């Protein structure tokens, strides 16, 4: 894991509650809005499970701590999007809160429904960008959510130990989080790989 320069994070009195809202314009029209919102709810929930921070969706975009938006091309933040593939999304370090997804991408929640060869998994990218919004920079660990690239038609939803350790250094641990559950799952994956090799 890595942090942004100066190691910024959201400095609030505990318990930390952050609100998020969706930019009212430019919403993608080929996935129902409720499904996009549900995907973000799951993405936020993934991080909330490991740190003592909660996330609440609000209607008032401009008043939200975290502002999620679909934008295309030059959208006014000095980092224009570049069309299909290339840069998929970007986000800003704490406590800026902006999280932008490129409207030019073919976003997908279900690759059975979306057959495009360039479809990109929205929930995976949302989980990655929320990591930035909370203060994690890019990780060199390929399996980590915070690794900078994601190929089309690939889902990467599970937090890696590297993601969890980095985020918990910023915010502490969620009292309900058990590291051994993460380790157990990693061990079980390793055992399955081991079995295949043995065969």
């Amino acid at each position, binding site marked *: 894991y*890595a*942090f*942004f*320069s*100066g190691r*910024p994070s959201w400095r609030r009195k505990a318990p930390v509650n952050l609100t998020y809202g969706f930019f009212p314009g430019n919403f993608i029209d080929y996935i129902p809005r409720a499904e996009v919102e549900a995907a973000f709810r799951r993405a936020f929930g993934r991080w909330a499970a490991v740190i003592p921070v909660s996330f609440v969706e609000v209607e008032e975009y401009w008043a939200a701590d975290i502002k999620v938006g679909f934008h295309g091309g030059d959208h006014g*933040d*000095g*980092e224009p*999007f*570049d*069309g*299909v*593939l*290339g*840069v*998929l*999304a*970007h*986000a*800003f*370090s704490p406590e*800026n809160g902006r999280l932008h997804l490129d409207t030019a991408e073919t976003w997908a929640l279900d690759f059975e429904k979306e057959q495009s*060869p*360039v479809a*990109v998994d929205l929930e995976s*990218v949302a989980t*990655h*960008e929320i990591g*930035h919004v909370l203060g994690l*920079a*890019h990780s*060199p*660990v*390929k399996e980590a959510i915070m*690794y*900078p*690239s*994601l*190929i*089309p*038609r*690939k889902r990467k939803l599970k937090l890696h130990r590297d993601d969890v350790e980095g985020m918990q250094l910023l915010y502490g641990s969620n009292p309900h989080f058990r590291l051994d559950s993460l380790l157990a799952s990693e061990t079980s994956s390793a055992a399955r790989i081991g079995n295949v090799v043995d065969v």
Partner: protein
Amino acid sequence: HPPSSAARTSPWDLRSPSVGGAWAAFEGLVDAELGDQKTGVAELKRYLHRFGYLPSNLSDHRRVASRDGNNFTDAFDEVLESAVSLYQSKLGMAITGRLDGATVNQMMAPRCGVDDQNMRPQRRNSQR
């Protein structure tokens, strides 16, 4: 050279013209090395500059002056070699400083726009 069907069966092949991808042209740079002058190297330098691997204060002979100051030359120089090594190290790859297939493939992959040196978001904050 046109793709053969056997080599192009991946459903997400970024090199396929039908799929495109902003950095598909990097494929032509595989095995380019120090001292080469090759079309497309300037674009690769822009990529590495954008994601924090090439400094913006290069001396004038290494880049062509332009309004945005980011027009690089097509020369594969030692600064690029060092940037490639840094890229490989930051992305958990074998550090060779060479544009091997794995490195170029990684550079062609779609990615997050936040730079890898952790500086750009800080700059964004100060703009705010």
